[in-house]
């Protein structure tokens, strides 16, 4: 019998266990069985991947870029969620605040999520810089909840929204997933509105070390991509993980994060 591929994932939610047990059950019926290991943070997971304890890691975009840096570009991205290819950062404020662009944040208070959240902290600063705003031009507040999980829990973004509601900040930078979770401003018109959406970038991806043979990786990816939203056994897993289809990664979608990390001097390892 083929030895299972060992996949690492960070336990950012209690649903991670049913998700991965569901994935394990699914792959048990394929030619590429898997097992999984859960980590409390991405740093530990990437270390395990690089040391050879894992065959694959389900990485955030930051974890992918850091793995890339630590392996001198040797690691490979194998697959992502359809939703990972069109991720965005959304800048939001109380409705009627009058923000119309990033430039209008000059001299105002912007609240960011956890410092290791690409969508709610690292990339927002990059987008501000692209818009000609340095950190001194905008009064930044950082809410570092759940550091280590790269913003996966969404908690720091919810805290950032609370800060805006409580008038401790004028605007917040959050991921499109959190913006969707609160109803995109449609749930309660008059509470929040978005005033700037970032270009799309890539988020999570399965990361493999160069040592994982193509002959093992390719059939596994083929089986992953065969998971079907219309299949009643697959669908609950896909719903919990927040996708409708597994897709090949979009590597160019990591360019903005690579640039942000370089600009902000964020270390490749921590």
């Amino acid at each position, binding site marked *: 019998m083929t030895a299972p591929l060992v996949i690492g994932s960070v336990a950012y939610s209690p649903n991670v266990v*049913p998700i991965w047990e569901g994935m394990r059950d699914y792959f048990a019926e394929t030619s590429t069985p898997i097992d999984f290991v859960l980590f409390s943070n991405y740093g530990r997971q990437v270390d395990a991947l690089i040391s050879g304890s894992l065959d694959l890691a389900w990485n955030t975009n930051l974890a992918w870029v850091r793995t890339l840096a630590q392996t001198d570009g040797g690691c490979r991205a194998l697959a992502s969620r359809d939703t990972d290819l069109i991720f965005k950062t959304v800048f939001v404020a109380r409705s009627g605040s009058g923000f119309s662009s990033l430039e209008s944040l000059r001299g105002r208070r912007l609240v960011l999520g956890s410092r290791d959240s690409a969508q709610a902290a690292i990339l927002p600063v990059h987008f501000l810089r692209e818009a000609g705003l340095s950190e001194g031009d905008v009064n930044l507040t950082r809410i570092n909840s759940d550091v280590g999980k790269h913003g996966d829990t*969404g908690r720091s973004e*919810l805290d950032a929204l609370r800060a805006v*509601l409580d008038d401790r900040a004028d605007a917040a930078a959050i991921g499109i997933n959190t913006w969707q979770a609160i109803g995109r401003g449609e*749930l309660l018109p008059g509470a929040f509105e978005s005033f700037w959406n970032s270009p799309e970038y890539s988020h999570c991806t399965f990361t493999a070390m160069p040592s994982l043979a193509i002959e093992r990786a390719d059939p596994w990816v083929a089986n992953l991509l065969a998971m079907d939203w219309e299949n009643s056994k697959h669908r609950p897993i896909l719903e919990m993980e927040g996708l409708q289809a597994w897709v090949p990664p979009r590597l160019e979608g990591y360019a903005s994060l690579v640039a942000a990390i370089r600009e902000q001097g964020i270390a490749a390892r921590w």
Partner: protein
Amino acid sequence: MSPSSAEPSAMGVVLDLIEGIGRVPTGGTATVELLEGNRISALDLVAAWCASSGNEIVSVEGLTVTVLHGRSPDPLAGLDPAQLPGSRVWVYTNFDCNLACDYCCVRSSPKAERRAIGAERLQRIASEAAAAGVGELILTGGEPFLLNDLDALVNSCTDELPTTLLTNGMLFRGARLERLRRMDRSRLTLQVSVDSATPGIHDSHRGTGSWAKAVDGIRIAHDEGFRVKVAATLPADQMHELDPFHAFLDTIGISRKDQVIRALAHRGVADSGIELTVDSLIPEVTITADGVYWHPVAADHDDQFVTRDIFPLADAIAEITRRFVAHRRAAERAAEWFPCA
């Protein structure tokens, strides 16, 4: 409180809820506390968020809202279509009877008050049932053939829907036989009660000579061109000895699909039998002169009384469906959380 101050605090409740839901797995529950000042607007917002995000409010107690992560499975989805509430509707035409069976679930007897549904109501029930998508009407009693207008009653039903008429089959003589002959053979099925292959058991419950008259009634109904089903009521301990009974029913021309065996229910005048409660019983919308009941087996019992309002019938069906879903979900939650110590 002005909208500008109320709405953001209501939104804060949603932020709390999103965080709470994120901390429990699908199938778990999270609670949030509303503020007294904007309870209604916050609750509306929580409901809207649940609807848009695929989660479900399971209870609201005072200011505490409990929300299920994900949606509970639809209890109706697991049912056979024929079991969906309102797929058929039972009507008690009357409660008086020429027999006084010792297990009667609604205490019918010659002394029971008639409590007739009446022609006008029955016609409206049939008409509204057809409009509500009901597939079949089932008329029962008491003994319906005690009613002098039974032919008109039955025809008002068969004009709208296929109908089954439950009877003890003992009264097909004289004017009552003439009424039977005026019923629509193409739309009406007779269901006659016979409890055993020989007179002994049947007569012990239903009265001496009743078995022979029922079997003769089946013959008459067949001769008159009616489809006849036979329903037997048996104590649970006799349910394993059915072969001789089926063989007997075969000999009197009852097809196997028309041989209905049901367990004796501990209801009415029965002193034993299976316990049937709204928690354990898939509902069968049942109407009597007194109102709407959960199931025909308890149409004389307050614990299964649903509403006095028979009309609009669609509302009564909807109410029973709503209660069934609520019972099933409550049972699922109880099963999930039942503590051992």
